[in-house]
């Protein structure tokens, strides 16, 4: 059942891709649908992949809803990947499975309209469904290893979302995304294998006990930090958040909703797994997460406030909300046994933020598919007289702003309570965090107000009005039926959840508590004065920030301006130079020295020269030559002496004892054999009646053959090479003999 849930979307992804592939032949694809995507009239690409994707996600929704009602057995595949995969399910995973399925379904409802006329849509659906399977794999993973495997798959499939539009910005953002994903994945890998080494298992449910028994705190911290880097990067945690404000805006809006809403949560999932597993009662770890969370929260809020791009604001807002969640997790670690409130707060804020970002990004998607523009100055006033969009966006804004009565309020109150509890123990540091928390809440309200006012209240400027009118001409109806269903269906949850704090929300927190190793959440009086006070302070902050900073500092001549200098970009100013300049900078000299043979080659040459000089010194001129010359001379004299002596000796002998006899006739023209052959031939010739001349011929032939043979062998045996040849034959014979003796003797 669990494996089915994970692999069904992947299977339908393949089906969708194939259906897209085979139905493409029916009509030419509309290729030049870049700027005028919405008004590509003769759009003929097949819808089959879309329906398959929608059906599959609907099926997933049913399946995951059913998982609530029936117990689901855990599932192991042992042979795979040397450690095996392990899936399990509990309350937290059930809730997140359902949220994932719900969000996928809702975004797919809008997708048909959104992608109308876009190209590479089949690719999008394929990777969309693949990602759904992968992210379910992450959440259903029973051990960190399985989680990592699907986490990596998810990184790669969602990479395609980011680069889907293939604009320059998208390509750049996608590169960043990929780099961070790979770094994070590797760091997590390292951490997980340290755990595997230390514990022999990475099962999430067993981490707590293992960590308790483990004496080696150093390994534990190393592993924890590595895994935190890995999963924190996906969550958008500072200082690895750099990809998030770039990647979320450039992706298509349905994908942005998923990236912000659930993909970041898969990172949080890992952070919770180790924070509430390895370091459940560890204040040191809690402090680390707290600092990172606070910075993320505050920085995200500031960036969102300064942004002039609708989706970028929402993306930075996501980062900020992740910071809120991290603070909840941190307080859980800080408080140990008493961390129920913050654990529930973190849990509920995760859920709320997923649903909130769904509404907000869908609304942003509606804006984009109508105007193809996200700059606040251009989309200004777009939402006027579009009541459905307006109400939905408003619900989302109120929710995320933490206004009482909406879902964000519940979780923020719990988080706030958690901080207050921790402040009782840890004092001023937590007080500071509390104020930053409230301030960030205020900034949340301020930037949401900024967006809302800009889109729905203000009138467009002159250029913007002309632009919007032009775009409207291409698209008379701004939102279709499916889009309406998606928006309303997503938005209606905000007040519903917000007003059911002690029923629905409490139940959710209850289900999630075991994953956090926290107690069950009791009944809370959310609308008590004490709790309303926090929201009130934030609201005041928000109003002040909006009125003073946004209206006065961030607007010039009625236009929103981006006051953020480009230099502040952490990626461009630190990470990229570090990776692309510093490292090669170190290796450049090494490469110059060794790689291109700046050392080896000269060294060889130098040795050659030195030995050449040596040879010259000894071998040729100065020493050996005179010596050898002298030797040659001496030997010449000697040999002459000796040869002359032999000559004299021979002469003497020939004159005295060994008087030469006349040499035997070697030049016999005819000997007995040739004579006989010749005669025989002559006789035959005569019998046949011909002239008999053969004897001469054969005699001559025989003579010539014999002479050639004698002379040749004589010449051969005279030469040096023959001697050498013979010597080699002899040596070989000796060697063979030695081998023979050695071997057999």
């Amino acid at each position, binding site marked *: 059942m669990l494996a089915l849930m994970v692999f069904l979307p992947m299977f339908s992804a393949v089906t969708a891709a194939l259906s897209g592939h085979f139905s493409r032949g029916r009509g030419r694809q509309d290729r030049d649908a870049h700027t005028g995507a919405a008004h590509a009239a003769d759009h003929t690409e097949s819808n089959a992949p879309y329906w398959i994707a929608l059906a599959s996600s609907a099926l997933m929704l049913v399946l995951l809803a059913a998982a609530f009602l029936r117990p689901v057995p855990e599932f192991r595949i042992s042979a795979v*990947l040397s450690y095996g995969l392990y899936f399990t399910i509990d309350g937290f995973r059930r809730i997140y499975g359902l949220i994932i399925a719900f969000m996928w379904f809702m975004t797919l409802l809008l997708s048909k309209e959104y992608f109308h006329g876009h190209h590479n849509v089949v690719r999008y659906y394929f990777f969309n469904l693949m990602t759904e399977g992968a992210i379910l794999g992450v959440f259903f993973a029973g051990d960190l290893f399985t989680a990592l495997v699907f986490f990596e*798959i998810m990184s790669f499939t969602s990479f395609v979302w980011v680069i889907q539009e293939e604009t320059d910005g998208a390509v750049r953002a996608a590169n960043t995304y990929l*780099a961070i994903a790979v770094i994070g994945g590797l760091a997590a890998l390292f951490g997980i294998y340290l755990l595997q080494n230390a514990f022999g298992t990475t099962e999430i449910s067993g981490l707590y006990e293992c960590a308790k028994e483990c004496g080696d705190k150093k390994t534990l911290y190393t592993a924890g930090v590595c895994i935190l880097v890995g999963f924190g990067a996906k969550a958008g945690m500072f200082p690895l958040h750099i990809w998030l404000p770039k990647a979320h805006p450039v992706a298509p809006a349905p994908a942005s909703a998923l990236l912000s809403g659930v993909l970041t949560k898969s990172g949080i999932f890992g952070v919770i797994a180790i924070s509430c597993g390895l370091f459940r009662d560890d204040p040191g770890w809690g402090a680390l997460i707290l600092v990172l969370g606070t910075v993320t929260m505050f920085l995200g809020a500031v960036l969102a406030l300064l942004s002039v791009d609708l989706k970028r604001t929402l993306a930075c807002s996501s980062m900020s909300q992740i910071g809120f969640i991290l603070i909840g997790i941190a307080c859980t670690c800080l408080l140990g046994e008493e961390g129920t409130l913050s654990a529930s707060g973190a849990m509920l804020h995760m859920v709320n933020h997923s649903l909130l970002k769904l509404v907000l990004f869908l609304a942003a998607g509606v804006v984009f598919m109508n105007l193809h523009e996200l700059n606040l100055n251009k989309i200004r006033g777009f939402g006027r007289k579009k009541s459905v969009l307006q109400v939905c966006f408003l619900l989302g804004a109120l929710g995320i702003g933490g206004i009482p009565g909406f879902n964000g309020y519940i979780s923020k109150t719990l988080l706030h309570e958690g901080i207050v509890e921790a402040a009782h123990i840890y004092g001023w540091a937590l007080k500071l965090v509390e104020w930053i928390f409230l301030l960030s809440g205020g900034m949340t309200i301020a930037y949401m107000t900024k967006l809302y006012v800009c889109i729905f209240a203000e009138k467009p400027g002159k250029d913007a009005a002309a632009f919007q009118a032009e775009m409207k001409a291409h698209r008379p109806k701004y939102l279709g039926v499916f889009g309406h269903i998606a928006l309303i269906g997503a938005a209606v949850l905000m007040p519903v959840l917000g007003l059911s704090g002690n029923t629905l929300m409490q139940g959710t927190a209850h289900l999630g508590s075991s994953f956090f190793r926290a107690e069950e959440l009791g009944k809370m009086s959310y609308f008590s004065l004490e709790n309303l006070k926090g929201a009130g302070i934030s609201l005041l902050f928000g109003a002040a920030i909006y009125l003073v900073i946004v209206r006065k500092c961030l607007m010039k001549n009625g236009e929103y301006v981006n006051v953020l200098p480009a230099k502040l970009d952490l990626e461009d100013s630190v990470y990229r130079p570090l990776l692309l300049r510093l490292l090669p900078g170190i290796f450049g000299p090494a490469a110059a020295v060794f*790689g291109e043979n700046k050392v080896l080659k000269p060294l060889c040459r130098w040795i050659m020269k030195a030995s050449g000089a040596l040879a010259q010194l000894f071998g040729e001129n100065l020493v050996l030559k005179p010596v050898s010359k002298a030797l040659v001379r001496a030997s010449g004299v000697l040999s002459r002496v000796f040869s002359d002596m032999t000559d004299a000796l021979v002469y003497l002998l020939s004159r005295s004892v060994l008087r030469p006899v006349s040499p035997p006739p070697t030049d016999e023209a005819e000997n007995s054999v040739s004579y006989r052959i010749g005669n025989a031939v002559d006789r035959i010739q005569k019998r046949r009646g011909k002239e008999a001349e053969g004897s001469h011929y054969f005699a001559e032939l025989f003579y010539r053959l014999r002479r050639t043979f004698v002379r040749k062998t004589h010449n051969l045996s005279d030469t040096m090479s023959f001697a050498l040849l013979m010597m080699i034959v002899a040596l070989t014979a000796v060697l063979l003999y030695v081998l023979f003796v050695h071997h057999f003797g």
Partner: protein
Amino acid sequence: MKISSAFLLPVILLPILSGALIQAFRIRKRKTVRIYTGAVTLLTSAAAWLMILWADDAPSILLQFTKDFTLKLRFDAGGRFFAGIVATLWPLTVCYAFEYLEDDPRQNVFFTWFTMAYGVTLGISMSGNLFSLYIFYELLTLTTVPLVMHTGTPEAIRAARTYFGFSLGGAAFALISMLYLIGGGILKESVDITRVFYVIGVVGFGVKSAMFPLHGWLPKASVAPTPVTALLHAVAVVKAGVFAVFRLTYFGYGTEILRGSWAQHLLLSLAVFTILYGAVRAVREVHWKRRLAYSTVANLSYILFGIYLMSPAGLTGALLHMAFHAEIKILAFFAAGAVLHRTGREYIFELNGLGRKMKMTFVCFTVSAIALTGIPPLSGFISKWHLLTAAAEENTPLSYAGAGVILLAALLTAVYMLGTVRTVWFPGKEQTIPENDASGKKIRDASLWMLVPMLILAAGILLTGLFPGIVIRHAQEIAETVRVTGGEF
């Protein structure tokens, strides 16, 4: 039933003699040569696999000059592992080469040397002592030099000269080390001198395993025809170097006297440095095949790193990476070669958007790139995981540095491999997607001769990634039963 080890020699000789026969007969018809080469390669692979599975473990002595200088074959588990990699990949490469060399006027010459190199490589895996290993090692140099300079361009000849020079120089070092082992005499009494000679030997064999600073020939040799760069310079030749280092470390000298010594530390730091160096150079390189060659430099040092750890876990990781890097890198080279063959493009920046035109080729390349980065569930992940585990088990500063560098290099791998993948599939709006190649022909995907080997390899990467159990088991078996005392194989 065991096959007698006397049959090892015929397996080696079969490709060597058959390769020479191509020249003897001077066959004119291209097709005949192909059928002949294909048949010989398949036959050899089948025979090699028979021997891998069922050969006797006993040594078979071919020639005994003296007691120490003996030509001896013995097929032990380590050799079988290496031979298994080679015997699996060779037929695939030959199949690929048929297409790649379709217009080559000197096809016969190519297949002659290529087939002979097969036999010699098998000889390396089967050699039963250091002397035999050395002989085959030298022969491998001799048979592969003509392949490097096959195209005959000045560049290729220069590359071949570099390769030859490096190899011969290295062989001289290896010879010194070998002679020391055989007749070290009184010198052997000092452990430190033995270590010095070990390092000399590793440097000698290290030439083929492209260890810094002896890697210079490898990137240059990428001018060779792609089947050569793919099979020889990513698998056979370089892995033979690694294999020789493995033999020298575990069998020749024995890890007993090396473990924990300065020699180990020196070599470990060299390996670590080479990993980083190769990866960084690969990032900076814009020529596709040279980039892959630099990546090979880095990846070979992963294997060396595992070997130099001198622990069972390290050796397991090394052997796994030897197998998995082989299939991954050969696939990457195949893709580069297919593009070169179809379009004549060899620089990364020329590849913009080519993924749309040569879909299957680049799907395969993407698989290879992801696997090389070490992303689960593909096979590169498995071997890296084992190497990392081994480094952590070792628990020394140097091994942790190695682990860190492996991770950093993985990031750099992502930059240079996935960067290419990104360019290929997502060129960006402003880039124009090429329609025609240089000669004006429409760009098509690689033909089946090339695609089938590539798809088999891609499937292999996925399957060995998902089900690595059998490979891991064998590697562990080798690592745990391997001797540590040195001496004969």
